[in-house]
């Protein structure tokens, strides 16, 4: 079966490539990365700050039901060309993953088809591999979040 999302991560390298084709016009795909309200919907995090311009910066934050901050990420936008490319850094606060450089390329494939190439470069190969293992950790967070949701409904 053809996979819509592909990951290419060569052994021992400190970068990876994520590619995805969307049944969306290029403009709508790009908008999903620059409109704070839309980012909040699909990323599931609050957008505290987002300056969509060269030398701009951004800050995301997620809180649990009790208002405790459970996730914080931020970075600077090195460069941005509308409907084409975003180059930015990304770092999750309070994690050992370090900072990563992200290069997003948005490509038009047709009127209602577009493609995202996301090139991510980590500080080291070891750090990249740590991030690749992250979904394991998120499994735990999801279990905890569900617990918190249920507990808060009981109150």
């Amino acid at each position, binding site marked *: 079966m053809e*996979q*819509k*999302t*592909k*990951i290419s*991560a060569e*052994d021992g390298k400190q970068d990876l490539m*994520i590619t*995805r084709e*969307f*049944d*969306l016009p290029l403009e*709508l*795909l790009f*908008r*999903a990365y620059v409109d704070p309200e*839309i980012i909040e*919907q*699909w*990323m599931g995090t609050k957008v505290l700050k987002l300056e969509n311009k060269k030398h701009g910066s951004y800050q995301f934050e997620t809180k649990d039901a009790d208002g405790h901050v459970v996730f914080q990420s931020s970075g600077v936008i090195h460069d941005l060309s509308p409907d084409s490319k975003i180059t930015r850094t990304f770092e999750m606060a309070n994690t050992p993953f370090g900072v990563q450089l992200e290069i997003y390329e948005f490509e038009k494939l047709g009127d209602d088809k577009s493609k*995202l190439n996301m090139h991510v470069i980590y500080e080291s190969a070891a750090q990249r*591999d740590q*991030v*690749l*293992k*992250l*979904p*394991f*950790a*998120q*499994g*735990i967070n*999801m*279990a905890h979040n*569900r*617990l918190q949701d*249920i507990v808060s409904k009981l109150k």
Partner: protein
Amino acid sequence: MNLRRDVFQAIADPTRRAILLLVASQALTAGAIAANFDTARPTVSKHLQILTECELLQQEQNGREIYYHINAVKMKEVADFIEPFRKMWDERFNKLETIMKKYKPK
């Protein structure tokens, strides 16, 4: 043992991935593992059974208790953990696509 159990199928489930992460640092009893989840105890037992059947977990008798620990050899077969990572992005992108298909410019 059911040899037809697929390792990737086993780790496709978030609770099972969380269980693997838990026991990665230390061997734990079924009770200690279950205490970490909001899922019902029999459900956790079922997850442990599946993980044991596909040899990602191993059981070890210690006195009256059975401890579960990670089978490092089998874990290595799980192609660098890339599949769960890919799935995570795939789900995220699916959400983006669904939201943008409904999107009406203001």
